[in-house]
């Protein structure tokens, strides 16, 4: 083992410190004087100049490794990509309001308890992908002979198989509230007509009551020592004081 390490270490020593070949070391080891860099040995056509390097004429200038500037009209994160792909409606739909957490809110018409994790009863979609059911290529209708296998015993189903009919609890109070609301503006012909009349009567009575109250107040004010004499013409001023 030690010999192996020694040989490996020796090889590494000869090649230079590890990592320097990747360019992350303190610096590239200087090439021996008789060696020429690979790029210089290769014909100019085969040298990889990187993406869009400057023309040789321009490279004679004091700059090297000068590249073309990126094209301005390229689609980048500088633009609002949601607007660019016309997804504002989807964004407002999903992010503007609170999306309900449960699956039954997404599929309200689906019977059964669908909010439970699918791994519990082996009904997960992932298991369907990982272990697809072994079945034929086509669905053929059942004939008389094959239907005999579906002759059932009379009577109710055992408890453990009744899960399908259990529905997630729904908030009844909210539904009731909703059902009553649309009926509210309708009842013009219903017996509840008396209610608005009562309200109207009250409203009709209101001015009379106000007049009576005003009269009482006037009488009281006339008798009170603080009465300025013009309170009847300027009720607001008296109330402000």
């Amino acid at each position, binding site marked *: 083992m030690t010999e192996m390490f020694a040989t490996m270490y020796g090889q590494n020593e000869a090649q230079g410190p590890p990592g320097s070949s990747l360019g992350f070391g303190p610096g590239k080891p200087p090439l021996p004087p008789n060696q020429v860099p690979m790029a210089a040995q290769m014909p100019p056509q085969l040298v990889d100049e990187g993406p869009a390097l*400057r023309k040789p004429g*321009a490279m004679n*200038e*004091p*700059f090297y490794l*000068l590249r073309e*500037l990126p094209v*301005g009209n390229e689609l*980048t*994160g*500088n633009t*609002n*990509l*949601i607007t660019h792909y016309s*997804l504002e409606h*989807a*964004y407002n739909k*999903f*992010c503007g309001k609170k*999306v*309900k*957490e*449960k*699956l039954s*809110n*997404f599929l309200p*018409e*689906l*019977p059964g308890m*669908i*909010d*439970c*994790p*699918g*791994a519990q009863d082996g009904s*997960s*979609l*992932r298991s369907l*992908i990982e272990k697809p059911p072994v079945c034929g290529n086509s*669905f*053929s*209708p*059942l004939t008389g002979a094959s*239907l005999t296998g*579906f*002759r*059932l*015993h*009379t*009577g*109710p*189903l055992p408890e453990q198989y*009744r899960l*399908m*009919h259990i529905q997630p609890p729904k908030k009844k109070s909210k539904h009731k509230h909703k059902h009553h609301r649309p009926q509210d503006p309708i009842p013009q012909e219903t017996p509840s007509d008396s209610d608005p009349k009562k309200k109207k009567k009250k409203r009709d009575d209101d001015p009379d009551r106000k007049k009576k109250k005003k009269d009482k107040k006037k009488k009281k004010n006339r008798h009170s020592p603080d009465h300025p004499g013009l309170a009847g013409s300027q009720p607001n001023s008296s109330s402000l004081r």
Partner: protein
Amino acid sequence: MAEKFDNLEEHLEKFVENIRQMGIIVSDFQPSSQTGLNQKLNFMITGLQDIEKCRQQLHEVNVPLEAFEYIDQGRNPQLYTKECLERALAKNEQVKGKIDTMTKFKSLLISELGKAFPEEMAKYKAIHGDDPPS
């Protein structure tokens, strides 16, 4: 495209409704309901055939596996869409911030280099031309 989904949705709804009715028949089975059950069974097979036909129309539709995970956990898959959109917007804003900062840095660097190395920067501008407005 929407018509194809509507077609599939319609078939799936019919299929689910048929299964639900079968569940009711089976939950308290009576001998007289055997004929009805047989009909429902064959209707279920017809429903499966209809769904199978829809598969050809929706061959190009790709559904992300993460959406399936949401469904398996009993969560609303619209939450996945919501999170994707929010993540996309956040990343978009991050990248825009980086681009804006780099643009500012570039213009500042060019102006400062112009002060320190006026001749070289004149040559640089001769090669690259004036920078596009940021």
